[in-house]
C-alpha cells in the first residue's frame, strides 16, 4: 500500500507542474464546452481534438484528454437539466428529475447537486482505481501472446455486445474495423496487404483518420439532415446553491451511485449509460415514496450523475491496466496513447509511470477544477447553449479537415477521412454502431500479432488458446459477454420487466 501512495505522490509531482495544470484547465473548459454544445457528442469532440495533442508530451496529452472526458460529463448534465436535451447517452436519466426540478424553479440546486455528485463520485472512484490497478497490472504481467489475444477478443466482444440494437450489425461493424486494420505492410513478412499500389497506404490507415471520419464527420452529416427541429427552450437559471437539506437527502444516493457506477464501469463495455440507469432504478426502489421520482426528486439527479462519473473512472481500470478500452471514449483515448508511442497495459505501469500516475493524480485535480470552474461559470455555459447548431456544423467539419491534414500532411488521409465520414453516416442511419469498428482498427494489428506469436510458440496448434488457463477464461468470458445481452433481454421479456 505504501508503494501506491509513494507512486501517487510521484503522480502529483507530474500533474502539478505549471504546464500540466494549464493543460488540465484547458481540457476541463474544452470538455465542458463540448458537453454543452449542441450537435457534437463527447466522442466526436475528443476525436477532433486529438490533432491538438499530437507532438505533446504523452503525460500532458493524457492529462488534457482525461480532463476533457470529465468535462464532457459535467457539460452534458447542464443541458439535461436546463434544456431537457442530454448532451450524451449517460445523461438521459438526469433529464427525468433534473428538468422537472428546473421547471419548478430549482435549476440551481439541480446543477449544484449534479456537480457535487460528480465530484464526490469521481474522487471516491479514483481511490478504487488505484486499489484495482496495481494487482490487475501484476496479474497482466504474466500474460503471454495467447492471453493477449484472449484479452483483445474480450475487449472487442464486450464493446460489441452492448453496442447498438442488433448484435449482427455490431459484429459486422467490428469485422469492418478489423479488416481496415489489416491494410498496410504486414509487419512479420513485409508483404503489402490491400494497399492497391497506393504508397500512402503502406503504413496502414491511421487511427485518427478513422476516428475523425467515423465519429466527427458522420455526426455532422447526420445532424445536418436532422437540423430544423423545434427551438430549444432554456429555463432561467436562478441561484446555483444547494441547501443543507438537499445535500443531506442526496448524500446516500451519491454514495450508492458511486459504488454502482464504479463497479459497472470496471466491467468492459458496461459503461456510464447502464450505470446511470441502474443507480436511478436502485434509488427509486429504495425510496419510501417512489412516486416522487420523475417529478423533480433531487436523488434522481444525484444518483445517476454520481454513477456516470464513477463509471468514467471505472472505465479507466481496464484501459490502464490491460490496455482494453471499455467504451467509445476510452477507445479513442487508447488510440491517442498509441499515436503518442505509449502502449497502454501492464507494461505502461513500468515503462511510463509518469503517464500512469500523472493521469491518476490529474483526475483528482480535474474533479476539483471542474467543481471550481463549473458552479461559478454555469451562467456562461447557459449562454453557449444559445449558439445555433447550423453555425457549429461547418466549423466542426473545418476542424476535422485541418486536424487530419495538420497531423499527416497527406491528401490521401484527408480523402480517406471524408470517405469514412460518409460510411459512418450510413452506419449511423442503418443502426450500425461505430464503437466496435473504431476499436477493431485500434486493436486489430495487435490482435493478429498476438495470435501469430501464440501459434509460433505452439508450432501452429490452435489448442494453445484453450490449454492455457487464463487464455481459456478470457475466451470463455468473450463468448459469455457476447451472449449475455440476448440472454438478459430474453429473461426480462419472460419476466415482463422493462428493457434498458
Amino acid at each position, binding site marked *: 500500500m505504501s508503494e501506491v501512495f509513494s507512486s501517487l505522490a510521484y503522480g502529483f509531482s507530474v500533474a502539478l507542474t505549471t504546464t500540466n495544470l494549464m493543460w488540465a484547465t484547458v481540457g476541463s473548459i474544452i470538455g465542458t464546452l463540448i458537453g454543452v454544445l449542441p450537435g457534437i457528442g463527447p466522442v466526436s469532440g475528443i476525436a477532433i481534438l486529438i490533432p*491538438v495533442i499530437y*507532438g505533446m508530451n504523452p503525460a500532458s496529452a493524457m492529462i488534457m484528454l482525461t480532463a476533457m472526458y470529465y468535462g464532457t460529463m459535467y457539460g452534458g448534465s447542464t443541458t439535461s437539466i436546463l434544456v431537457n436535451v442530454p448532451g450524451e447517452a449517460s445523461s438521459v436519466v438526469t433529464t427525468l428529475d433534473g428538468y422537472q426540478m428546473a421547471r419548478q424553479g430549482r435549476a440551481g440546486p439541480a446543477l449544484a447537486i449534479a456537480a457535487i455528485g460528480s465530484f464526490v463520485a469521481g474522487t471516491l472512484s479514483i481511490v478504487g482505481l488505484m486499489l484495482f490497478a496495481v494487482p490487475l497490472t501484476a496479474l497482466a504481467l504474466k500474460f503471454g501472446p495467447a492471453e493477449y489475444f484472449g484479452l483483445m477478443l474480450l475487449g472487442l466482444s464486450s464493446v460489441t455486445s452492448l453496442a447498438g*440494437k*442488433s448484435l*449482427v*450489425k455490431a*459484429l*459486422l461493424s467490428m*469485422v*469492418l474495423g*478489423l*479488416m481496415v486494420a*489489416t491494410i498496410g505492410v*504486414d509487419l*512479420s*513478412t513485409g*508483404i503489402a*496487404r*490491400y494497399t492497391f499500389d497506393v504508397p500512402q497506404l503502406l503504413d496502414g490507415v491511421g487511427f485518427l483518420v478513422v476516428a475523425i471520419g467515423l465519429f466527427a*464527420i458522420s455526426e*455532422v*452529416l*447526420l445532424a*445536418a*439532415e*436532422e*437540423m430544423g427541429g423545434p427551438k430549444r427552450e432554456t429555463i432561467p437559471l436562478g441561484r446555483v446553491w444547494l441547501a443543507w437539506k438537499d445535500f443531506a437527502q442526496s448524500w446516500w444516493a451519491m454514495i450508492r451511485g458511486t459504488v454502482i457506477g464504479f463497479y459497472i464501469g470496471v466491467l468492459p463495455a458496461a459503461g456510464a449509460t447502464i450505470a446511470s440507469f441502474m443507480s436511478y432504478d436502485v434509488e427509486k426502489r429504495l425510496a419510501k415514496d417512489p412516486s416522487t421520482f420523475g417529478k423533480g426528486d433531487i436523488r434522481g439527479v444525484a444518483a445517476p450523475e454520481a454513477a456516470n462519473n464513477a463509471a468514467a473512472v471505472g472505465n479507466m481500470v481496464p484501459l490502464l491496466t490491460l490496455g482494453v478500452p471499455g467504451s467509445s471514449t476510452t477507445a479513442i483515448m487508447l488510440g491517442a496513447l498509441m499515436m503518442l508511442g505509449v502502449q497502454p497495459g501492464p507494461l505502461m505501469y513500468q515503462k511510463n509511470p509518469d503517464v500512469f500516475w500523472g493521469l491518476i493524480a490529474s483526475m483528482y485535480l480535474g474533479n476539483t477544477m471542474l467543481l471550481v470552474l463549473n458552479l461559478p461559470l454555469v451562467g456562461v455555459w447557459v449562454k453557449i447553449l444559445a449558439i*445555433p447548431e*447550423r*453555425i457549429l*456544423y*461547418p*466549423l466542426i*467539419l*473545418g*476542424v476535422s*479537415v*485541418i486536424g487530419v*491534414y*495538420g*497531423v499527416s*500532411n497527406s*491528401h490521401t488521409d*484527408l*480523402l480517406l477521412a*471524408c470517405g469514412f*465520414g*460518409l460510411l459512418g*453516416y*450510413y452506419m449511423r*442511419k*442503418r*443502426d450500425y454502431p461505430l464503437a466496435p469498428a473504431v476499436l477493431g482498427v485500434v486493436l486489430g494489428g495487435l490482435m*493478429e500479432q498476438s*495470435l*501469430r506469436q501464440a*501459434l*509460433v510458440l505452439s*508450432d*501452429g496448434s490452435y489448442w494453445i488458446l484453450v490449454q492455457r488457463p487464463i487464455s481459456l477464461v478470457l475466451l470463455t468470458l468473450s463468448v459469455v459477454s457476447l451472449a449475455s445481452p440476448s440472454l438478459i433481454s430474453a429473461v426480462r421479456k419472460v419476466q415482463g420487466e422493462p428493457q434498458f
Partner: protein
Amino acid sequence: MSERSHDGVVALLVAAVCIAYLRGARGFQSPLVADPLGPSAFPTILGWAGLILATAQIVLAWSGRVTTGGSPASFRRSLRPFLLFGLLIAYALALESAGYLLATIAFVLISLGMLGEPLWRGCLVAVGFSGGFYYLFVKVLKINLPIGAIFRGW
C-alpha cells in the same frame, strides 16, 4: 425502397466487399516457414466471418426480424448531408492549391450560406474561425498548414 429491403441491400453490399476481401487474401503468400499462420490467415478468417454475418443480416432483413434506422426524412433534408459532403470533398481537394486560409474561408462561408445563415454573420464566422485556427495550429502548436500555390511566391 422499404427500410427492410434497404437493410438487405446494404448487407448484400457488405457481402460483396467480404468476397472481394477474401479474394485479395488469397494473393498473400508468405516466404517464412517460421510463421505458421502467414499473412493471409487473419484476413481469411475476417473475410469469412464478415460473409457469414452479412448473410445472417440478409436473412434477418428479408424475414422481417430486423432493427431499422430512423424515420425517413424529406427529400430536401436528405439532400443536405450530400451537399455538405460534396463541399467537404471540394474543400479537401482545394486545400493545398488554394491554401488553408482561402479554402477554409470559402468552405465555411458557403456551407453556412447553404445551412441558412445570413451572409454578414457567415463572413464574420468564416474569417474569425479561419484566423483563430491558423493562429492555434501555426503559431501555438507549430503545425504547418498549406499556404497555397497563389501565395507561394510572396
